């Protein structure tokens, strides 16, 4: 199967997912008990005012027309207007997205930097104490409520030790770097603002560690299983027999091959982290999408919640598509097997 065929098929699925998710969120937002027009107008508004809002929002039209309008708007980047902030949902999401992405990338890097060595060690010393320790750690990781872990590290590193700040993305007393990219970390580097950079990094550590914790174990598990597959291969034995040192065979020969199937897991992890960020952000008052969506849920702001759902789902499927394509590029055998 050629690269293009796979690409076409996956793009088809992407479109199917977007239609499916928009249908689901549309259905959900019409399931809400109560009248959105009444919600916007407020309790004391007259019936005429409510009817006017209903007409303005198109809520008096048949459902399929409403869905058509919703899709037409979505294609043009219009996700509706947030009831809580009064701004377009798309604008809100764009404003909050960089902070979330920054957090997710930091957590992802952390889980790879810790998870890969742990996974390799676990595979090389299979059934030894280190292997048991890594596997137990992985089970504990997937069993930990992330929001609770956030509170506990907050208690330790802010409350007891006072090493790190309690929340937010940057110290309010430090003037934030100018907005070049919207990513505080990158902006601070570009601006050459050392004080801001230190503050941003300090604020990033606890949320990123909390969010990444769960995935260290997941990455380690994946690497371990892929490494065990590779270490059982003939080429490993041949390389050892040819006189290469054990560490060289493991790190130079087996590990790169084990990394390839693990790329898929990274794509899935990205999605998990993206929504895991919702909880972590609330704990650390991180100014990202998660905080935004939780505040929206509490304010019954459905356009915002639904917009968030569609955008995150889209991003998730898109990232997994890219990861699958990377997988094909990295492993030439896939093309033949199809």
């Amino acid at each position, binding site marked *: 199967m050629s690269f293009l065929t796979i690409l076409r098929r996956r793009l088809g699925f992407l479109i199917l997912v977007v239609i499916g998710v928009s249908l689901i969120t549309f259905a959900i937002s019409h*399931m809400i008990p109560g009248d959105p027009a009444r919600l916007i107008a407020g309790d004391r508004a007259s019936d005429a005012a409510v009817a006017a809002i209903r007409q303005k929002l198109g809520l008096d039209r048949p459902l399929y027309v409403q869905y058509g309008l919703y899709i037409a708007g979505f294609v043009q980047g219009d996700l509706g207007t947030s009831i809580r902030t009064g701004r377009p949902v798309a604008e809100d999401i764009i404003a909050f997205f960089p902070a979330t992405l920054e957090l997710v990338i930091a957590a992802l890097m952390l889980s790879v930097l810790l998870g890969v060595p742990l996974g390799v060690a676990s595979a090389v010393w299979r059934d030894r104490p280190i292997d048991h320790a890594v596997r137990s750690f992985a089970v504990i990781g997937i*069993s930990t409520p992330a*929001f609770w872990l956030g509170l*506990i590290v907050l208690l330790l590193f802010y409350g007891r030790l006072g090493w790190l700040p309690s929340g937010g993305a940057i110290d309010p007393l430090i003037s934030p770097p100018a907005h070049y990219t919207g990513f505080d970390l990158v902006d601070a580097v570009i601006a050459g603002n050392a004080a801001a950079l230190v503050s941003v990094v300090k604020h990033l550590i606890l949320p990123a560690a909390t969010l990444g914790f769960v995935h260290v174990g997941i990455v380690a598990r994946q690497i371990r299983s892929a490494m065990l597959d590779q270490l059982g291969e003939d080429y490993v034995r041949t390389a050892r027999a040819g006189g290469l040192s054990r560490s060289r065979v493991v790190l130079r020969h087996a590990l790169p091959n084990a990394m390839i199937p693990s790329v898929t897991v990274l794509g899935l992890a990205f999605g998990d982290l993206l929504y895991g960020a919702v909880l972590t952000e609330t704990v650390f008052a991180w100014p990202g999408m998660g905080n935004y969506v939780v505040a929206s*849920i509490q304010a019954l702001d459905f356009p915002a919640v639904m917009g968030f759902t569609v955008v995150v789902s889209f991003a998730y499927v898109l990232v997994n598509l890219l990861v699958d394509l990377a997988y094909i590029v990295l492993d030439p055998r896939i093309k033949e097997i199809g």
Partner: protein
Amino acid sequence: MTGLSGVPEGVPQIRRGIGAIDWHRLTWQMRRSPLAVVGLVIIILVLIAIVVVPAWLPIDPNRINLRARLAGPSWVHWFGTDEVGRDILARVLHGGRISVGVGVFVVVVSASLGTMIGGLSGILGGWLDTLVMRLMDVVLAVPSLVLTMALAAALGPSLWNAMLAIALVRIPVYVRLARGQTLVIREADYVKAARVFRATPLQILRWHVAPNILSPILVQATLDLGAAMLMAAALSFIGLGAQPPAAEWGAMIAAGRNYILDQWWYSAFPGGAILLTAVGFNLLGDGLRDIIDPRQKARS
């Protein structure tokens, strides 16, 4: 010498297919999987603690004692007290009934509905099967917590709605699993024979397919118990699940959040309870998977 089901050993048991549960083998192999045993022991201890102990515990989880507000752990209150002097230990134990109950409810609902849909879809095949599977693919392509949150938010904040939302979003996992297994069994001679005798799809599902696909479903369900519990706690934490003053673990963590720096025990113990219970379910689920599907063991 007879086996567990009363059938003399050596006589092939016709109903037992690839995925049927072999209790005899299961109990024997459990002994060789120390982690699964640890998981099982944790689950049994947790169940005793939340089902049996509260019955004769002298403390009422909702008794307010304003003189002992936010007291730290002591001999009187092992886990301390909350802002109105309620005993945290009593609330954790009572709350466990809700939290574990939510997990069990969600898994039972999603596993049985998912198995039925997936099994029927696999038996019937055709365009219906394609439609169902595409729908499931779409739902599975969406991050589950996001969809669950949106659904729970639309239904309105209550524990019941949160449970419903979690269960609905978990269904596709079982649909896919059950369908995959069904497709294999569908081709077996005894199923073809049943078709010849005009068995309805539901009869085939009940008598020929379900008994044979039970064990992978059971493994998935065990692993899901922990995940469902965590998700329910997460929804409660952001205000979509159990509402105060209900003693549910997630809601308790949320309530104790404002006291975390000075009264750590308020949030720490309910969270520890979730962690312990989820570890139990995950260890047991991993162990069962190793036993039932030995090919996985080499890899995991």
